[in-house]
């Protein structure tokens, strides 16, 4: 591991992406960005990030979910922790309109939901917690 934690932010709102970049870079995280699911997947293929912050509705209403599922079904990507950022309240995303119905049958591939607008401190706390848990998991599985 190269010292710098690599975070991939995938969101179609450039202003929001920039805000996250400012927050994350203030804590010396390495930030890469993508503006839709397809671009995001290409960036992941290029280099596996330590954590993904993913928006739900981008090119399509379920672009974010679709990407999350695609990753979870691929062995080399299925352990990447994902924080899902959504403008919908978390409850609505979970209980879902028809658009999310097809996902409900399976277990969530998402490590955590955060509700927009993003609070910088909340985001950092959650990230640190998830990264720490992930590190322990990785260590255990490698042992």
């Amino acid at each position: 591991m190269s010292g710098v934690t690599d975070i991939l932010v995938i969101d179609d709102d450039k202003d929001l992406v920039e805000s996250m970049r400012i927050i994350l870079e203030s804590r010396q995280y390495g930030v890469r960005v993508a503006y839709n699911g397809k671009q995001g997947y290409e960036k992941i293929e290029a280099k596996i990030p330590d954590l993904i912050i993913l928006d739900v509705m981008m090119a399509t209403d379920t672009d974010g979910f679709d990407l999350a599922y695609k990753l979870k079904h691929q062995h080399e990507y299925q352990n990447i922790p994902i924080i899902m950022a959504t403008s919908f309240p978390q409850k609505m995303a979970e209980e879902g309109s028809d658009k999310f119905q097809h996902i409900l049958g399976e277990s969530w591939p998402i490590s955590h939901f955060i509700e927009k607008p993003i609070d910088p401190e909340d985001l950092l706390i959650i990230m640190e917690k998830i990264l720490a848990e992930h590190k322990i998991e990785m260590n255990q599985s490698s042992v």
Partner: protein
Amino acid sequence: MQPGYVLVKEQLFFRKELIERLPWLIRLRWAVVVFGFAGCGAIYFFWQWLPLPLMAILSGVLCYNLLFLFVWRRLSPFKSQGAHSDFDSSFIRAQDVLRFNVFAHAQISLDLLALCMAIWYSGGVCSPLALFVIFHIILTGILLQPLSCYLYGVLVLLTLGGLVWFQPGVHSPIFPLWYQHVILPHDGNPVAKDFIGIVRYVTLVVAVLITAFLVTTLKLSLRTKGRELLRLSKAIDASNTKLTALYDMVKEMGMSTESKALMDSATRRAAGIMGVKACSIKLLDEQHKNLRFASTYGLSEEYIKSKESIDIQKSPINRKIIDGAVYAIGHIEERDYFAYPEDIRKEGIASLICLPLRVEKRILGVFCVYSDADASFTESDVRFFALMADLTAMEIEKLNTQLNRIWFLQKAAHQLRSPLHAVVSMLRILQKGYLGEMNVKQEETVLRCEKRLELLDSLVKDLLNLSIRRTALNPDALHRVQLSEVLRVLSGLFGSQAREKTIDIIFHIDENLPAVMATDRLLDDLFTNLISNALKYTPPGGKVTVCLTRAEEGGIRLEVADTGIGIPEQDFSRLFSEFYRAENAKDFTETGTGLGLVIVKEILDQLKGTISVSSSIGEGSTFVCHLP
């Protein structure tokens, strides 16, 4: 329909018997005339003597019967259909009902007059013909109202009484009575005695025959009516079953929140009620070229798979519907209709009806009912299934409109909130000093911007919540939920919010509360809105108490009490109106959408609960909800 018209129809229904009997009376009268003249002929044959007065009366009857026949032909509403065919009473107008009544009265009065004259000329009360008045009374009783029957009865009795008065020995007769003067003077004459016996016997025979004729005719007519009633009651029973099923189907469809469930209940109900083998709904694709099974009941997987996509051009029966036919009945033997009859035969289908699923002029697809019997569909079945198809199409359209509306609302809310979230996120970066320290005034201004934007965000969120709730669709399927568990989860969240505001928050949650029919989300929204209101309008140092207990009257009682600013009494009535905020609430805090309590009310309506408020200014408010 106008009430007058209904009345006429009703009168006509009960007058049907009379109208049918009127030509019968005319025919009966011909028989009387014929037999009467034959009797006169017999008298002439035996005694070489003509009872002229009797013949005069018979000629009178003949004349007025001709007149009646003429009037009947003019009056008859069913010249073309014949007097006995079922007539459609809507052809007859109100004044016609009156005419039929007058016509019947005229016939019966003239008949009675003729009979009384005949009785007079044949010997007064002693006349054997006196017996015949009974038949007239019976006929009057059948044809006219009871009162008319009694009136004619009294009239007959008075006339017969008059005859007694004018009889020899009581009073001088005006006319010499034939019976007394021609026959009786031969008193002591054995021929005359025999003659009296013969006359009495013949009259008795005629009376017996007429009685037998009347009774059997009436009985036949009653039996026909009874059979008709039985048929009607069976028909009513069948339509009642159909209507109940239709009602259940519409109710079930109305409760569906997704198209598949809606169509499944339509096909299942259709197949269930009519005892038909199977039912299917096929929908048109966007190009209007192919039909796809959207729901089936009673068809085998294999059959459905083999017909996954039906090219309209290759299926004549379906094409007929798509081209605008109201319905199409197909029998397996009709080769032109089916491209692959062997598939259908293998499925055990002998005939089928296809109906359009139509909304106004737009065709959504084809509603199909299959039977294993050949030609088992009657016209009324087709009408019924057409109604079913129309209702299904309407419900499908309604649900799609609602789903589209919800989708649009969600999308619109997302589009509205996205820029807001970006702005708030950027302001937070500014405010938290990620882009360098700000002075106090700058920080304060940024914080104000942030607060206003957060309010705007919660307004959008509340509006979305409320709009989705108000679409007729019920987004939440209720199930048993433990209130105490939902509240316990929230108590942690509100505990930390209260600590930030230095408000003391106390939760009293009764253990072992019964579960209520709700959803986690509804209860979450209910608690959140009530408790965050209490926290919002309570100044620091105050106290909020949340009690969840078993209600004395059954169900569950939720009480949220605060020591906040209180609600002015004049605002109680408008507390649950959209965007309404009490004056003191607006002065106290700017954050508030005026929708929180509206949402609370909507949720309670959905859960069949109630809410009451008590409050005094400056001391606090208490909201009490009751959940069944």
